[in-house]
């Protein structure tokens, strides 16, 4: 899922300085699961901002609303009543939701309350790790099911580099060497010979957008 972290509140307060009435929009999707932008965090942030502004002598009124997702237009219509009452929206959805919500209400300034970080797995309560880079050309079949683009710091396709030591990446001892993981997995699968194959250079066009995906066989003709 998409993992996001809350932006530092100083930055958020800076964004909201000129506004007196704001809607904090939460999302019940990925950002709830990664404990950053669900109804609970909306409430906590709203309380913090109200208190901060009260202290400054520049009080702010904050409305709170959380809906299923912000990446579907139909769900974004549910915010209409509150949007009409406010001067600005602070969205805690991922970058997709923030933009999509903004597209729905183009005459109300919209601000990001989170930094969207990565496509990650929920390892345990409070811990998430990146697993996928959305490079558009998956090579997991060649690497024992472990992604070299996302999990190698240099995204090498023919790793490891010389900096791999004791299963740890040269960049940080907290980062496992992605290619050590791949090697170990291939050994466990009895497929270590795959390491001998030279994987050719990548088509990075697939990895960078703006990208679109259309299923011609499923698009709806409403005429």
């Amino acid at each position: 899922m998409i993992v996001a972290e809350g932006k530092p509140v100083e930055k958020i307060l800076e964004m909201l300085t000129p506004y007196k009435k704001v809607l904090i929009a939460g999302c019940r999707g990925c950002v709830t699961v990664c404990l950053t932008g669900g109804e609970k965090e909306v409430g906590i942030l709203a309380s913090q901002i109200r208190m901060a502004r009260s202290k400054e002598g520049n009080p702010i009124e904050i409305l709170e609303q959380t809906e299923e997702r912000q990446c579907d237009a139909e769900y974004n219509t549910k915010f209409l009543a509150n949007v009409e009452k406010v001067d600005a929206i602070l969205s805690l959805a991922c970058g997709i939701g923030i933009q999509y919500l903004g597209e729905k209400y183009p005459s109300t300034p919209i601000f990001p309350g989170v930094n969207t970080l990565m496509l990650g797995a929920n390892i345990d309560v409070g811990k998430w790790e990146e697993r996928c880079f959305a490079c558009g050309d998956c090579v997991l079949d060649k690497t024992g099911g472990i992604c070299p683009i996302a999990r190698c710091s240099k995204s090498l396709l023919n790793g490891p580099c010389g900096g791999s030591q004791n299963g740890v990446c040269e960049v940080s001892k907290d980062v496992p060497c992605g290619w050590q993981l791949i090697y170990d997995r291939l050994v466990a699968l009895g497929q270590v010979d795959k390491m001998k194959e030279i994987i050719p250079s990548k088509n990075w066009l697939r990895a960078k957008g703006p990208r679109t995906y259309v299923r011609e066989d499923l698009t709806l003709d409403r005429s």
Partner: protein
Amino acid sequence: MTEANEKPESNLKSGSALERTYASGQFVVTGEVGPPMESSFHHVEMYGNGMKGRVDSINLTDNQTAMTRLASWGAAVKLVQMGLEPNWQMTCRDRNRLAMQADMMAAYALGVRNLLCLSGDHQAFGNHPGCKGVYDLDSIQLIAMTKKLRDEGCFECGAECKKPPKFFIGCAANPFGDPFEFRVTRLEKKIEAGADFVQTQCILDWDRWEKFMDLVVKAGLHKRVYISPGLMPVKSPKMARYMQHGVPGMMVSDEFCEFLEKAPNGKIGALDLTVDYIKRCQKMEGVSGVHVMAVAWEEVVPLVVTKAGLLPRPFAAFKDNPAPISDEIKALWKKATVENYIPELA
């Protein structure tokens, strides 16, 4: 020095002195200079002159440890202008394949003949940690691309290059990296991709190096690629111990540290140890030369190669009249208390 339109000797790929020396079976010695962090060739000239006629070719590092420095290609061209032979280094971190091929054509046209293809230290280590690490290709794909240009006259995309650069292709190997059992296979992969010669990370743990070469010879790789281990004179025993414990991934043996600790003059000890390692390498099966990488101590290369009896060089320019040692270098020797190591040079 061959021009782009000259045919090198039929069995040589690039015609460089380095290639010729390796091909002749004689023991190769290369040096290394780290370009400065400024727009000046002063240090390149100084150290280059020190190594004139004393080594087969000289490495120019490429934004080493991701610290931005005068470009390796620039320093390489300067050496060519000085009549010396550079080993141009290119990492995958800073360029995409368009820039890589563009730079190759220019460098070759300007006389550069040896190219080492490296992954590059991650940008997090350097002075611009937030910059984008390009990594469009990895080192193996870079080797393959360089070989494709040279042997097929084609760009990476397959289009024809009418006057392709023909480099003698080098790569790195790390006998101290993990997974250890995979290191030899990785070297083989680089040979498959097209590597002609190998320079390893500096050897500070002789036993581990021997184990590695054992496996390399067993796999017959020494017959398919020329291997030069990196050797680094380590200025002080304290530095050796620091590298042993304080630098992740560095393998330094107690034997290495103890030799330096017992030496009456630490710096002389460092030079002696390097010379001793050179001698050991000359006797080792599968080793075709040495690469003396006196990092931040380039001035001692002439001392080491002279003491190790490696002169004269067989094919290097100025082999018969190596340059006299400049006052500046002599002053550096004095500062390091090694001025009497080779009295004739002082």
